[in-house]
């Protein structure tokens, strides 16, 4: 079974974000980056399927050169090779345009399964995988938390709202968007890191994007307006804040 797993590099979740000068995106200069959370789970599930059924796991990333760290980490964890669509600037790339570039980058691979995360932690479009499936003519399932690939057809468990689930059956090839928590993520071993050095990373240029105007464009980014009057306590002093909070919980909230 040949599995392609799409992984995106995003800003580290612990980073304190700042808005850039033009208010078009965040200030990226001083940020560290990491792999998008659900993509890590998509890789893990792909590796497990390969271990069970044989085959190959190919990682595909679109991004600047710094995104190589996502690829190297995935190769160290056990992916077999990688495709890096080198594109410096993902800004103003709509989910449709992004999916189109990714579709062209992997179309020739003829995968049995394409795995993506369920949404990117930065743009949060939650669309790239589904659009990609449409462009590649594949059936898809989103928010997948269990995969059974042992039969002729794929059987996947989808998460619905509020603790409901549903099983879907569909033919292969197919595309799945993976929800975090599907399985526990492995760490890269030293052996894996060494082995990764010999693995192929193919760099490709992005396919030409449509000259047509994009269907959406970000005009401005800003911090959401606060709607609630939060009483901030301690004024930067954690211990003082804690003492004030204890008092408020007793006298105002009356929880003890």
């Amino acid at each position, binding site marked *: 079974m040949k599995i392609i797993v799409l992984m995106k590099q995003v800003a580290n979740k612990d980073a304190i974000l700042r808005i850039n000068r033009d208010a078009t995106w965040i200030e990226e200069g001083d940020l560290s980056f990491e792999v998008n959370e659900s993509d890590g789970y998509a890789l893990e599930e792909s590796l497990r399927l390969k271990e069970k059924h044989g085959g190959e796991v190919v990682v595909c990333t679109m991004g600047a050169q710094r995104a190589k760290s996502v690829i190297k980490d995935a190769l160290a964890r056990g992916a077999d090779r990688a495709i890096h669509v080198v594109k410096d600037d993902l800004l103003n790339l709509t989910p449709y345009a992004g999916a189109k570039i990714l579709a062209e980058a992997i179309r020739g691979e003829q995968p049995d399964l394409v795995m993506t995360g369920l949404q990117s932690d930065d743009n949060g479009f939650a669309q790239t995988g589904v659009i990609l499936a449409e462009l590649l003519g594949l059936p898809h399932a989103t928010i997948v938390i269990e995969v059974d690939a042992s039969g002729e057809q794929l059987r996947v468990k989808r998460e619905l709202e509020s603790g*409901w689930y549903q099983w879907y059956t569909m033919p292969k090839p197919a595309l799945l968007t993976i929800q975090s928590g599907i399985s526990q993520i492995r760490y890269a071993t030293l052996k894996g890191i060494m082995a990764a050095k010999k693995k192929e990373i193919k760099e490709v240029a992005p396919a030409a994007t449509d000259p047509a105007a994009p269907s959406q464009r970000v005009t401005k980014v800003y911090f959401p307006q606060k709607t609630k009057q939060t009483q901030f306590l301690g004024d930067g002093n954690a211990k003082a*804040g804690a003492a004030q909070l204890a008092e408020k919980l007793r006298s105002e909230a009356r929880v003890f």
Partner: protein
Amino acid sequence: MPNGIIIFTEHRDGAFNKASFEAVAAGQQLGATLGQPVSAVVLSADANVAQGLADYKLDRVVSVENAKLSEYTPDGYADALESAVRALDPAYVLMPHTYLVRDFAPKLAARFGKDVISDCVRASVDGGAVTFSRRIFLGKIDADVVESMPVEVGEVRMKPEAPFQEVKAAVDLSKAEVIVAIGRGIKGQDNIQLAQQLADALGAELAASRPICDAGWLPIDRQIGSSGQTVAPKLYVALGISGAIQHLVGMKNARTIVAVNKDPEAPIFDIADYGIVGDLFEVVPTLVEEIKKLKG
């Protein structure tokens, strides 16, 4: 020229969900501002389902019908709505941001060479141009006419089975009066005992955001949010939780919300009554101490 607004409404066996009515309200408001007609579309195998929207003030309700729409599939819904959108030629298609819509809307949009403006909570109109951003419209809706529209649905590749719930959660947090919830800010499983000390001091149940349960640090039945439990305790203390919408929907109705987070811009502060901007590893031990002192 495309004209009008159509609203996709989601139902299960004829019961429309709340998010659909919010979408209808949003559509109505947008329609009024733009001076455009507003219609709702209902996908179903059963013409009667659309009658459920008859009392809402809409220009029309279009029942999009095909036997293959008796249960939801992304193939079936994308085909059906594609036909409907081509026939009705609207300027805007509005949808509630539910898990079901997330599953097919991008596919539908892709057939028009477009994508979705997802997770949208506000729309503002300036000289006929609409800017969508993040806030929710609210309001109540009525409709008058019901139209019917049989559509073609091609091959449906996926076969859904009946939705089900896992065995009842071992802990029912909906009854808890006080909840101490931890997020990724807790950093490691070993640190959970710190939150447990606070929970003990407050007589609280321990709960968590998704990443904590994903990592297996706490069992999944302690997860709060759109795919976990929904709670409304007297007090909810959020430690190192950023406040993603999928978490907020599970706890925003708590009577008093406390947030401890080192990021002053963390969205959790937007719904917090009391906030401490700081390191939870400094705040929590002092808080435990002070509570014990006050309790005497």
